[in-house]
Structures are given as C-alpha cells and as structure tokens.
C-alpha cells in the first residue's frame, strides 16, 4: 500500500472515530497555540523594543540613578542587570548643563524630572506626571504635536509657565475641545497650554499621561530637587563609547567621585533585552515542551483505545493482505494527522490572538515569524511520531487469527 493510501485509510478511520480524534486533537491544539502564541509574542515584543530603541536612537546615552555593583569592564549583561541597586537620584539639571558644556561629542543633554500631581481645568481634574524638561526633549524622542507647539528657549528663560499636555491628559481635561490657549492649574500654578502631543507608544515610557513644562518650574513648585533621568545625544554613533566615558568623568567629578548613577547606552539596552528574551524564550519552550508531552500522552491513550476497538478490523486487514509495515504506517499516519491538524488549528488561533493583541496594543508588532511555525510543526510531528509509535506497534503485533476471534 502506497504512503498516500496509508494516509487515506488513516483519514477514513479518524472520521469514523471523530469524537476521540477531536479529543486527541484538542491537546495538540492547545500546546501548539501556547508555543506559537508565546514565541510570536516574545518575538514581536523584542522586535518592537528593538525598533523603538533604534528609533529612539543608537546615539543616545541615558544617565539613571542607581548603582551597578559588579559590572565588568566593557560588559553589560544579565548579571549586571540583576546587580543594579536602586538609589535616590542625585542627578541634577546642572549635571546636564556641565556635560553639554564640557563634552564636545554631546549635541544634546536633556534632563527630566517628574512627580505625580493633579491638573485642573475648570471643574475637571486628572492625575498626571508633572514633568519638567528642556526644549530639546521633543527632538530626543521625536515627538509629534497634535496641537500648538513644543516648549522653546523663551519659555525656559522667561519661566513663561507654558505647558504641553500629553494626549490622554488633554482628553481628560478638555475632551474633544481645543486645549491650546486655555489655562490649567497644577500645584496651584496656572499654566497656559501651548501644545498637545499626539498619542505616542514607546515600551517603558509614558508620554500620554504627562504635562511638560520648563524644568526649573517643576523644581520651584514642588519639593523635587533631582532629575529622574538625563538623556544625552552623541554626535556620532561610533563615538558613543568614548563619549560615555567622558560623560561619566564629568558627572563623577561633579558628584565628588560618588558613583550613585549609571550610564546606559542604547545598544546595551538592546543587549539586555536580547538576553532577557533568550531567557524567557527558553522558559517558554520548556513549558510548551511539557504541554506537548502531555498532549502526546493524550494522543497515545486515544490511539491505544482505538487500536483496542479496531482489533477485528486490524485482523481483517492483515488477513486480506496488509503487511506489518502497512499497518504501522496507517496508525503512525493517524497520529501524525491528529498532531498536524491540532498544530495547524493552534497556529491559526495563535495568529488570530497575535492580531487581536496588536489591535489593543499598537506598540507591539503583529508578525507570525516563520521559525515559530517551523518550531510548532516540528514539535507536533515529533510528538505524533513518538507517541503514535506505541499504538502502531501494538496494532502490528495483533495476530489476525486472534483478532478475527476477538469479541
């Protein structure tokens, strides 16, 4: 019997026992869905982060409060990440100014400070991140304005009490009405709205629930004294390492040698993301492996039951000329078809879920990478073959003379 006939006979039998086939198929469907969805999600998450970090710019260096306890020279890896100790920030506006002044390779030094506050407009109010920064901030993050303009040097120098609202802040206070020219009150200080940002998604950042004003204004109106981060833009990507060293020297000198901050480069961030993703991917594949094992056992159990029920049929087939390998092929084909069908449906469902996720989280891409499909199919083929073997061998061992007497 040719291979095609084995598959044809397998399909026929599966149709005859559709209830059991369906039960066996469900396990594989769930396993495949789990594997494909999680791997695709991780892939898309990583792709999105990489894209956003690259979009943010590989020429960026971020100064953050905290200390790396055992950082090796020139190396930023998972152990480094795990050794970060959070500290209260000692970074200042002056650090940004000094770096910009003393390090020629730095073309922009943008501090950011923030605190949760209430913003009021008329009877409406909303919780926001009251954020102080400098006019170069929008260039660093390539912000787009929905209305008005971004903060400028005049605002900074004259402390003009100008404010730019994030998209959600504007929506909460003004709804669909124009906000530019209106006055909002934060910390008892009236601010004139000069601009509204378009919605922006960047993993790890929140732009929409903020209100941006001049850095000194936040310092003057709150008890916050330090920058939460300072963003540095380097003139040339090739100089990032060298410039990072120079920035470190300047800040370290200003902090009297106290290392209570760290400098993170964009490619280091990507490196960390890659390491984390590999770790999570390994865990995911492990979990999916267990799931495939369980569904494989399910297939085996169902197939063993089917072989028992079809003992007379197997005996008849052997009596009329089926050879052992043909019986083996037929039952292996059944297990394989169940696995592949379950896997195919699982892949389709995971594709649908990924698209659905993309609909709700625009920052995440919605690709179904080829390797995910390959992994899923490979796992299902292996599961089908390995767990279909025992029932197939049981069928092979059936003697026609015994089977024909089987009640």
């Amino acid at each position, binding site marked *: 019997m040719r291979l095609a006939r084995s598959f044809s*006979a397998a399909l026929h039998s599966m149709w005859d026992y559709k209830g059991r086939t369906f039960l066996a198929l469900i396990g594989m469907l769930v396993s495949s869905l789990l594997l494909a969805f999680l791997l695709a999600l991780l892939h898309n998450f990583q792709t999105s982060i990489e894209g956003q970090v690259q979009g943010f710019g590989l020429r960026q260096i971020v100064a953050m409060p905290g200390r790396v306890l055992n950082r090796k020279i020139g190396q930023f890896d998972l152990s480094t990440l795990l050794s970060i100790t959070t500290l209260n920030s000692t970074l200042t506006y002056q650090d940004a100014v000094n770096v910009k002044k003393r390090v020629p390779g730095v073309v922009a030094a943008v501090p950011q400070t923030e605190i949760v506050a209430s913003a009021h407009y008329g009877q409406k109010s909303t919780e926001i991140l009251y954020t102080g920064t400098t006019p170069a901030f929008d260039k660093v993050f390539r912000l787009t304005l929905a209305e008005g303009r971004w903060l400028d040097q005049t605002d900074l120098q004259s402390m003009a009490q100008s404010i730019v609202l994030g998209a959600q802040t504007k929506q909460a206070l003004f709804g669909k009405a124009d906000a530019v020219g209106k006055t909002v009150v934060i910390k008892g200080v009236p601010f004139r709205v000069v601009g509204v940002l378009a919605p922006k998604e960047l993993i790890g950042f929140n732009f929409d629930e903020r209100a941006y004003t001049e850095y000194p204004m936040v310092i003057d109106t709150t008890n916050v004294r330090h920058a939460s981060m300072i963003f540095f833009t380097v003139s040339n990507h090739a100089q990032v390492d060298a410039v990072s060293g120079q920035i470190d020297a300047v800040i370290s000198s200003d902090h009297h040698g106290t290392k209570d901050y760290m400098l993170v480069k964009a490619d280091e961030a990507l490196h960390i993301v890659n390491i984390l993703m590999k770790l999570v991917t390994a865990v995911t594949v492990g979990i999916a492996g267990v799931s495939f094992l369980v569904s494989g056992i399910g297939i085996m159990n169902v197939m063993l039951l089917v072989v028992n029920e079809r003992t007379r049929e197997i005996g008849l087939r052997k009596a009329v000329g089926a050879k052992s390998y043909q019986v083996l092929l037929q039952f292996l084909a059944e297990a394989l078809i169940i696995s592949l069908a379950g896997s195919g449906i699982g892949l389709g469902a995971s594709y649908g879920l990924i698209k659905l996720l993309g609909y709700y989280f625009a920052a995440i891409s919605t690709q179904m990478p080829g390797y995910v499909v390959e992994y899923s199919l490979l796992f299902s083929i292996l599961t089908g073959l390995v767990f279909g073997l025992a029932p197939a061998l049981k069928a092979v061992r059936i003697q026609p003379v015994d089977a024909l007497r089987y009640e």
Partner: protein
Amino acid sequence: MIALKSVTKHIADGRRKIPILDDVSLFIDKGEFVSVIGPSGSGKSTLLNILGLLDKPATGNYIFAGESVLGLSSGRLAAFRNQRIGFVFQMFMLLPRMNVLENVELPLLYSSLSRRERRQRCKEALDQVGMLEKTRQRAIHLSGGEKQRVAIARALVNNPELILADEPTGNLDDDAKHAILHIFSQLRRQGRTIVMVTHDVESARIADRCLRIQSGRISGYDFEANPTASVASAASAASAASAASAASAASAMLQNAAAPTDREEARP
C-alpha cells in the same frame, strides 16, 4: 493444488497440551470444492486458518501450488493471502462504517492496482453476487444475507486461486442461506477451488466431496454428502479414494515441492 502432510496443532492448558489437529493429511486439487463438516470444537476452523495461512501448525508441512509455504516470512505470507486466497467468514467481518464498495475494495488496497482498476474489479465482483446496486450503501445497513454476499465479493475481488469459507451460512435464515449456497454453486461451476467449513449437512452437500473432522482427525469421507457429483474432476475421483490415498497424494506433492526445477519443467 494444496496439500497438508501430517499437520498437528495443539493449544497449551497449563502443562497439558490439548490437540486441535492430530496428524492431518489432506490433498485438494485445483477446481475442487471441498466441504469440511464436524461438530463444534472438532478443529474445522483451525484447519481453515492453517489453509488460509492465518495460523501455523506445530508440525507438518503445507504445499500450496507446489510451494512449501510454512517457512515464508510474514510479509510474503501477507502477500500470499492477498493475491492467492479469498476469505469468507461466518460473522461476515465487514467494516460497518464503510460502504459496500469500500469493503470489497479492502484487499485491493494492499495491491499495486490503480484506483480505477480497483473500482472496476469491485464492480465485477459485486455483480457476480448480485450486489451491484448497493455499492454506496453502508455495510451496517445491510441484511445478513447481503452482508455475506458482500463478503463473498470481497473474497473474489482479487481473483484468488483458493476460496476459504468458514460457516458462510451459519448466521443466515433459510432464504439467505439458499441464496449464498447458490452463489457457491456458481463459483463451483466456474471451477474455483473452494474449501468450506460447515456443520450444516445441507450446505456441505453442494461440494464435490465432503470431509468429516472429529477430535482433530479427518476421520473419513462422507460419500453421501454429494451423491450427484458425477461431474467430478480427476480430483473428485481422488475423493472416492481412502484417507490413506489422500495422504499419498499429499506426499507426492511434497516431493514435487522439494524438486521445484522438475516441477517447473513439467508445466506446459
């Protein structure tokens, strides 16, 4: 055509061996229709299973068309059953969820025929048993007589040299039984080699000769089983001989089987 020589078969019951077939020798010529009658447990079905290569004897030899077949590998035995033997079982052994055509096609699935050739052969076999109109009907919906006709069509579909029937009328009412016996009579007239096991004397009478088996031994021929068998072939002449002469014929075949070159030369 086929010869059994000193075949024994037993089953183990603890340390005790219970004989099923005891030194059975048998010779059946090409085109001969032999019925085997005997009470339940006499070894009829075991004899048929050995003739059908579904079971192996403990001792003895089996020659099929000049070839000693007991030493064949399981793969060759399967091919042998597929191409040279047709089975009709008492319980029909149809696959209930398949339709008539698919049931008849089953042996052909293990041959190298194309789908078109398979379907053509199935239709011819079904036509022979008068079931051509019901090819698409599921086996589960057929009457007992119809099921047995389909089973006969399945046995004929590969045009085998030997047809083995195990109580083919055992589960049928009188009308269905006569219809099935009529089909076997037709097959006999076509010159098919048939061995039919039955405990029904009326069914056994349609054969060229009848063997009686009791306690695993062929105890002698029942000459009255078919008194009108005047059209008997040369083989049926042998049916008038004693059990000893059947054993002699079997021995002669065994000797021929041991000298295949001579046998090949002797063929026209």
